[in-house]
């Protein structure tokens, strides 16, 4: 028996219908509504405080400046931020994927003892949260405080992603798996050679989500890490912005140099987004239809 999975070709008619025009129009209008404010965000990040304050919606700064970006990057913490976050990505995302995929696949059919209980137990964790103190104490007990592993392990599986992945896998034809089993394949083999290739869209999606989550996380790093050489990028950016928007009322550290908080804030957004948007196209190709033509050839 041979299992054949081939990519499909779209062999639809090629006429450009009225429906296409309407849909395109809708998309373009929506896209404009997104792009225009976004241009404003970029514009402010390249503008001076005065200019940004003067115009209600700045789109093209007359006197552009890279001062905001300069202030961001000259901060010594930035390098630490990048290093730490890359470390978190490298260690964390594979862990996330491994745990999520193995759990999702194994719980696709819940017809074996304990499966239902385990599934509901996992679901329950999405609703119940013990708060930060028990987690901190746990990490303390495990000796992980101040080590990168605390941040890695505290976010192991996102139950939501787990459920979504599992749901996708339930749509895969059981016959494929049955045939593989008859052929004598073990669970790990099935997972690796059959399920994963067929689940590329959802794995790509979850991979993207986990990566972005890891890229954006800052809270865990703040609580569990106290070292100056381990600060997640988002936390660095957040602190840089915070340092600038301290309210007068605190009457603290002397010379208050006025800073353009909004400009820096916008710059941090752009700095955060750019790497992700470079990454995104690689995953987009997995959202192509026709990943599978259910072809089980005997």
């Amino acid at each position, binding site marked *: 028996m041979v299992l054949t999975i081939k990519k499909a070709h779209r062999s639809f008619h090629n006429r450009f219908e009225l429906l296409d025009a309407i849909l395109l129009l809708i*998309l373009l209008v929506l896209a404009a509504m997104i792009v225009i404010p976004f241009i404003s965000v970029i514009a402010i990040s390249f503008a001076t405080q005065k200019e940004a304050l003067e115009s209600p*919606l700045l789109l093209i700064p007359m006197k552009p400046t890279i001062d905001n970006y300069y202030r961001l990057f000259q901060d010594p913490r930035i390098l630490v931020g990048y290093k730490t976050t890359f470390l978190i990505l490298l260690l964390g995302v594979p862990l996330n994927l491994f745990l999520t995929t193995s759990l999702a696949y194994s719980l696709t059919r819940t017809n074996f003892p304990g499966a239902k209980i385990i599934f509901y137990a996992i679901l329950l964790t999405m*609703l119940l949260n013990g708060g930060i103190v028990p987690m901190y104490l746990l990490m303390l007990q495990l000796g992980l405080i101040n080590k990168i592993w605390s941040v890695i392990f505290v976010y192991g599986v996102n139950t939501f992603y787990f459920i979504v992945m599992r*749901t996708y896998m339930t*749509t895969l034809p059981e016959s494929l798996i049955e045939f593989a089993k008859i052929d004598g394949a073990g669970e790990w083999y099935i997972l690796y050679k059959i399920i994963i290739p067929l689940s590329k*869209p959802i794995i790509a999606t979850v991979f993207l989500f986990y990566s972005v989550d890891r890229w954006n996380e800052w809270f865990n790093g703040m609580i569990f890490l106290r070292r100056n050489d381990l600060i997640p990028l988002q936390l660095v950016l957040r602190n840089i912005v915070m340092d600038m928007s301290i309210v007068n009322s605190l009457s603290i550290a002397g010379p208050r140099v006025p800073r353009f908080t909004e400009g820096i804030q916008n710059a941090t957004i752009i700095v955060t987004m750019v790497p992700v948007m470079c990454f995104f196209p690689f995953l987009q190709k997995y959202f192509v239809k026709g990943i599978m033509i259910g072809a089980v050839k005997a």
Partner: protein
Amino acid sequence: MAVSTGGIKKFDFKSYLANTGKNILKNREKYLLILPGLAWYIIFAYIPIFGLSLAFKKYIAKLGLFRSPFVGLYNFENVFADPAFMKSIITTLRINAGRLIFVFPFPIILALIFNEVRLGKSKKILQSIFTFPHFLSWVIVGSIMISILGQRGIVNSLLNLLFGTQPIGFLGTPSYFQPLVYLTDIWKSAGWSAIIYMAAISGIDVEQYQAAEIDGATRLQRIWYITLPGIKSTIIVLFILAVGNLMSGGFEQIFNLSNAATIKVAETLDMYIYRITFRGSVDFSFSAAVSLFRSTINLLLLLAADRIIKRVGGTGLLA
């Protein structure tokens, strides 16, 4: 395993055990697959959950979680004593229920449009554009909203230009708050949430479309009879999960979009907690009590949604 004896089913314990044992053996590899994930959940999800027991205790640091004294429902009395608490619960439910109706369908529709429209290479670029707002923090979205809807903003300038109207305080009018929440939520999250649906659509068997075309189905019919049913399970699951989140979420958005003028319609549970704890006390027992209360409601809502959907003919969470 039931053994029927003249119509009466008797529960045969011995063979039940034997069967279970056989089942476990048969599926042993599956258990191995589950093990890593399960271990993680037990250590890092379930052990901290015991922290919720703080809701019934008075936390004494040196005694730790387990030996801190039990105080019964004392913490809950504190929680419920403030009338603003109940009000915030209702506000939360009102706003989030509306989200289910107004915001939830959009990513689906967007994914369908993306699937249907034919653009070749530029489709990818367009898809990427739609994910941009996801990366903006609500703080920035708040500022953008002021630029657009503020009294000196774009919309008011336009209205003044076209109709000569006086500036309208959109952002300071309580009745506009809820629509604002939904519109900005759609704007910010539809593109990103659509990704899941697009992935689900990718998994639909292409042959079904080909067969339908041969049968003479129009595009709209294809969407209705193939695409939508194809992602039905995904939609249902996401819907149920959204219901299970009805009491949580949205803090950053509400915090940044509300202001002194609209606060009365905007104080959700998270906002209430923020207000109470902002000026000082870090009472872990109080937070645990609120958390437990919130989680219980979410759980009940989730189970109810699951059951209702199963009644109506869907597959529920556990397919």
